[in-house]
């Protein structure tokens, strides 16, 4: 009986490692998206978004570097060149961020942000073009993420247990303040997922109490309904219009 209980407890212990707190996002994963913007009712491809992961080791620790970069296609560079990067250095197992960096270069407008996470405190250093560097320290909740790591954390949720309309709340730190984010499961749909072919996906709506996102259920993400939960399609509605990111290539998943 003791042996049975022991084996059972081991099994339960192993099962507990597959909960949301333990996520295994592979290092070397590269997801390439084609970014389109709605111009007078027509979706026009304007940029490429690349989401990649790699392991970065320091003398003491190993981190997972989550990198999202946006670059306009060469034909737009002469008119409005965009080179944005959003990076997060996280614990490879829990995806808890240690460092978040944002570098924006949009048609000459530049902005750099760096957030260091220490316990429940964030120290941010921000610099806008031609303006002096500002430093700010503020407290955050224990489960507060940055926007990049949240995108990866969402992939760890077991949506098989979700029903349509069910929500899950998160908190992110963006523009030097905490913002509540709600994720709503809207059901399942089949969408094109680039080189992965057509895939059955979980359709999710992202809502945030911020001016950056507009409308209800207008900011959507489709995650492949398999173990990888690759974001296949993302639709967004922002104050200056609407657009979408469609997966074109997924490697190292």
């Amino acid at each position, binding site marked *: 009986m003791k042996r049975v209980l022991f084996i059972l407890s081991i099994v339960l212990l192993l099962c507990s490692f597959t909960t949301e707190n333990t996520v295994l996002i592979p290092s070397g994963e590269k997801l390439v998206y084609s970014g389109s913007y709605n111009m007078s009712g027509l979706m026009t491809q304007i940029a490429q978004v690349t989401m990649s992961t790699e392991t970065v080791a320091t003398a003491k620790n190993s981190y997972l570097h989550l990198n999202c970069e946006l670059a306009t296609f060469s034909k737009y560079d002469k008119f409005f060149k965009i080179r944005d990067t959003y990076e997060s250095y996280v614990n490879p197992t829990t995806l808890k961020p*240690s460092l978040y960096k944002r570098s924006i270069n949009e048609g000459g407008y530049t902005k750099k942000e760096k957030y260091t996470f220490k316990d429940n405190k964030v120290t941010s250093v921000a610099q806008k073009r031609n303006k002096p560097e500002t430093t700010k320290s503020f407290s955050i909740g224990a489960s507060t993420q940055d926007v990049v790591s949240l995108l990866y954390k969402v992939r760890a949720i077991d949506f098989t247990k979700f029903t349509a309309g069910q929500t899950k709340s998160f908190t992110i730190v963006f523009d030097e303040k905490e913002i509540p984010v709600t994720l709503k499961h809207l059901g399942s749909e089949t969408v094109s997922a680039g080189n992965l072919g057509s895939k059955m996906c979980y359709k999710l709506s992202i809502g945030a109490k911020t001016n950056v996102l507009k409308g209800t259920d207008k900011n959507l993400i489709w995650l492949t309904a398999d173990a990888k939960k690759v974001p296949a399609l993302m639709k967004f509605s922002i104050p200056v219009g609407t657009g979408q990111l469609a997966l074109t290539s997924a490697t190292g998943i």
Partner: protein
Amino acid sequence: MRKTFFILSVIFVLISITFSILPLDTLALLPIGIGLICIFIAFKKSDVSQRKVLKWFFAITYICGLFVLGKTYLVKDEVAVDTTFEQQKIEAQQEAKKDLEELEGIE
């Protein structure tokens, strides 16, 4: 009536040329389409002797349409190799590694 559509034709031919040159993709088809409709109406309302200029307008707008469609389907969308950006990324990663080590030092 003829004069109105002739003026509209001129305006939309100019917009079509501008939009075709700019990287506006299929958005350029909008003034091209409207331009072709205006040219057609102006053409129908004109006498045979007045149609020569409109024929030229039609040819220009038609070429603009072909040019836009050619760009859309034949020119591949790609990101240019940006050495400055690549260098910035390498520097940013080195700086991040230093920041992480500093953070570990505090712990």
